[in-house]
């Protein structure tokens, strides 16, 4: 098994979601299976000389520096789950912030 329970927990922490104890073994197993499967890529010799490829334009297009915001039919007050006095509101980080 290439991914341990602890690694799953560490990754889940980076990705900011909880993994409950009961599902941990199954998730670790599935992740291992997938990672073992994709690990076959390392078998291919590339010598670090093969350039990466991404489709799309070769170079960024520059936008002129004008105030021209993309339209919003309504503001955050309408879709925010918690909004007060013009601010998004979230619970505090914890006792250290």
């Amino acid at each position, binding site marked *: 098994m290439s991914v341990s329970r602890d690694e799953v927990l560490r990754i889940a922490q*980076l990705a900011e979601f909880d993994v409950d104890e009961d599902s941990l073994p199954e998730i670790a197993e599935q992740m291992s299976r997938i990672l073992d499967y994709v690990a076959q890529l390392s078998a291919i010799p590339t010598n670090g000389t093969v350039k990466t490829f991404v489709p799309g334009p070769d*170079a960024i297009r520059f936008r002129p520096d004008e105030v021209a915001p993309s339209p919003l039919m309504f503001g955050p007050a309408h879709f925010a789950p918690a909004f007060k006095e013009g601010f998004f509101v979230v619970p*505090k980080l914890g006792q250290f912030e």
Partner: protein
Amino acid sequence: MSQAWETVIGLETHVQLRTRSKMFCGCSTSFGAPPNTQVCPVCLGLPGALPVANGTAIGLAVRGALALGCTVHPKSIFARKNYFYPDLPKGYQISQFDQPLATQGTLSFVSPERGTVTATIVRLHLEEDAGKSIHDRFPKATAVDLNRSGVPLIEIVSGPDLRSPAEARAYLQTLKQLLEYIGISDCDMEKGSLRVDANVSIRRAGETALNTRTEVKNINAFSFVEKALGVERDRQIALVEAGGNVTQQTMLYDSKENTVRPQRAKEESHDYRYFPEPDLPPLVLTPEFVAEQQSELPELPGQKRERFMAQYALSREHATVLTASRAVADYYENVVRAPAEPQAAANWVMTEALADAKDHQEQLRVSAAALAQIIALVKGGTLSNQAAKRVFAEVANKGGDPRTIAESLGLVLVADTNVLAGWVSDVLGAHAPEVGRYKNGETKLMAFFLGQVMRASKGKADPKLAQRVLEEKLSA
């Protein structure tokens, strides 16, 4: 006794670029708008939104890189820096990682301890700013304003080349001056357009290896730079001298207590999982584009200082004061060109103009032309120095033509020899014993006579002429 310690400091400076719109969307960047009113799908991180790069921001970043003598890379890549925080709407910041815009520049500054120091600029790259989190507005909650989210920033990273908190301050001062000079940023720490984080470590004097460093954040004003770094240095020295080890952590500066404290008791080291931004093609800079940015660069502060010294025969000290900001330097030169004699102009700008500006939000309230006129009036003997200062103040507050104002205030010196002769006669007549002493050789009494003439004329006598008339009369 404690060994000799050396402090090693590197600075990471974030500078907001002076653009009208944000880095990746067309929202306004203007300061002070009501919260969450300068936002759009892109800088709100709404599902489906995509970034589009601001060409002017790129140009300003290139100018900054050129002014710092960096190698500007014709191709650089935007990358995602992934982490979670409420004022980071996408859950990642678009920045640059292993292929930044520019590398390997220098910044020379005057260290209070070592003379001229040349710090390395390891890299300069483009990125977007996060929004603002306000922790004390609502109880048990954080308020988030995304107006600032997406504002263009450049990050300038120095090498570990600074050796004291005072040096760090000097470096930062010089950097700020340079970037203001080339007009790419307001560099205002109070407004947040210039932010600095420091990396601090200590080692025994003579060591060359670098020890574990800490990061010091939350330095919100220029005056705190030296204090914060001094506090952290002292903390590290005390720790090591007591037998402990410096651990890598982030320290937050508390300006009220003048202390540093760890950001979090158990800080997980961030794994930012950088990868190239798939929503943006590579940033390709044509030679023409870079050349255009080069041509837009004004004379840099160091160059200007040297030229002032040579061209206007100014001392290094005076030239430094006059080139401290582009506004003052341009002002000075405009006064000289008006025309005015360079030395007199220097004196007037350094004393009267700058003092007035200090009390009036750095505004140079008297136009260069008006100042040149005032200087000419003094040189021509129409105004005494004292009177000229009054005229200056009047022009500063109310505007107007200096000559007219001098006249209306009755400050114009009297150069009419007849009137002068009258005053001289009165004075000499009233002080016959002194006249006698003068004629017997006490020539220093001339100053006394002159003073009396000035008193009699209520300051309006042209002192040079008055002296000549006195000399004539006394030698008769």
